[in-house]
């Protein structure tokens, strides 16, 4: 049984590279039948765990099975040569090698990115040169703004299904706390406990939410009072020391 989950892979090629390494397959003399078997086992075990397997993984699986079955068919050399098609094995190996190259470069990019995050620029000195600043440096009109807002809205509406999918997945208590913090911002200073469950599609999330609320009370972010059978939560107004001033 694998201890890794599908989420750790960035796609079917990443998974194949993992299997090739894990099963010590020879990339330059790739046994497609063996790779197909391993890949299929993996996908099946993920599906048995009820993990969602993206369609990309399944379409590559179909491709692998096709390669494998072609290999089993009796070869007709003349047909193959006449068609002058690339050997499917070679093309798969080429794709894997190319993908591996880009996978390798990401480490370097990540390092460079993190280093750059640690050095800062300074803002434009406005006061120093105020008297020489021309009035308008920027050009634009209201149509630019409306178009930009349209783009934002289209993107948000396209992303909605993805976000719902994530919400329906299992959340950790910490993740739920982050969500609650944002939700609670929009609530009045005191509100009923039930408000926190308003977006819970199942009992599991209700439980996680309850744990999250308890934790937030422990952290002092929420206070609670009991009125009859009704529990009310109150946002703690204590300043946590954050002030954006220098």
């Amino acid at each position: 049984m694998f201890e890794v989950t599908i989420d750790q892979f960035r796609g079917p090629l990443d998974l194949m590279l993992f299997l090739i390494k894990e099963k010590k397959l020879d990339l330059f003399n790739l046994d497609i039948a063996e790779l197909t078997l391993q890949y299929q086992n993996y996908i099946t075990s993920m599906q048995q765990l009820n993990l969602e397997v993206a369609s990309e993984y399944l379409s590559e699986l179909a491709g692998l099975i096709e390669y494998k079955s072609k290999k089993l068919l009796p070869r007709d050399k003349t047909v193959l040569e006449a068609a002058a098609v690339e050997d499917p094995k070679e093309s798969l190996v080429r794709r894997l090698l190319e993908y591996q190259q880009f996978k390798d470069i990401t480490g370097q990019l990540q390092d460079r990115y993190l280093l750059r995050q640690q050095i800062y620029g300074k803002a434009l000195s406005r006061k120093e040169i105020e008297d020489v600043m021309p009035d308008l440096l920027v050009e634009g009109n209201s149509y630019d703004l409306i178009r930009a807002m349209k783009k934002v809205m289209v993107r948000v509406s396209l992303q909605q299904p993805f976000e719902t999918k994530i919400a329906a997945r299992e959340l950790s208590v910490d993740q739920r706390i982050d969500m609650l913090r944002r939700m609670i911002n929009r609530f009045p200073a005191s509100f009923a406990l039930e408000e926190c469950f308003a977006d819970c599609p199942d009992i599991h999330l209700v439980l996680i939410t309850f744990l999250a609320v308890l934790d937030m009370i422990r952290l002092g972010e929420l206070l609670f009072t009991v009125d009859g059978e009704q529990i009310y939560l109150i946002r703690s107004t204590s300043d946590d020391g954050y002030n954006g001033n220098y």
Partner: protein
Amino acid sequence: MTDITVIIEGLLFIVGEQGLSIEQLSATLQCSEQEVLKAVDELSVFYKGFNRGIQCVNFGGQVKLLSASFIHPYAQHMLSIQKTRQLSQSALETLAIIAYKQPITRVEIEEIRGVGCDIMLRKLQAMDLIREKGRSEAPGRPILYEVTQDFMDVFQLMSLEELPKLEQIANSSSQELFD
């Protein structure tokens, strides 16, 4: 320069024209105000010692780096020949979100755009297109942003009412998706 002087130089650079007080520096570096003053002196002398485009000044206990004044005519020339700047798509999107939803916090903008926009907000602020408008009541009391008078000028708006309602945009954009 000594280590503490170098760190002070870096910090003064980052905060820019706002500068830092001797107390702030001493608290950050966990050393005495005497030591800070000595380091600031060393820094001023270092900048004076060379022919430099930057100077280090201490005005009433507020230490800052400034450009040397003979630079200003060049800066003026530079700005006058600069072509009008085109706002990038992400700048426009950020401005649009603020104009429609103001006052709004950084986190709320990031939720809508799906990407961080800390640097973008600083750029827009430096361009005087947005400004800080108090703080939200939310935990951490994050800064609220709103658009400025300059924003209205740049986009030729009499008031924000002139922008179409979001529902109108939504209707037209969903059509656009399917044609």
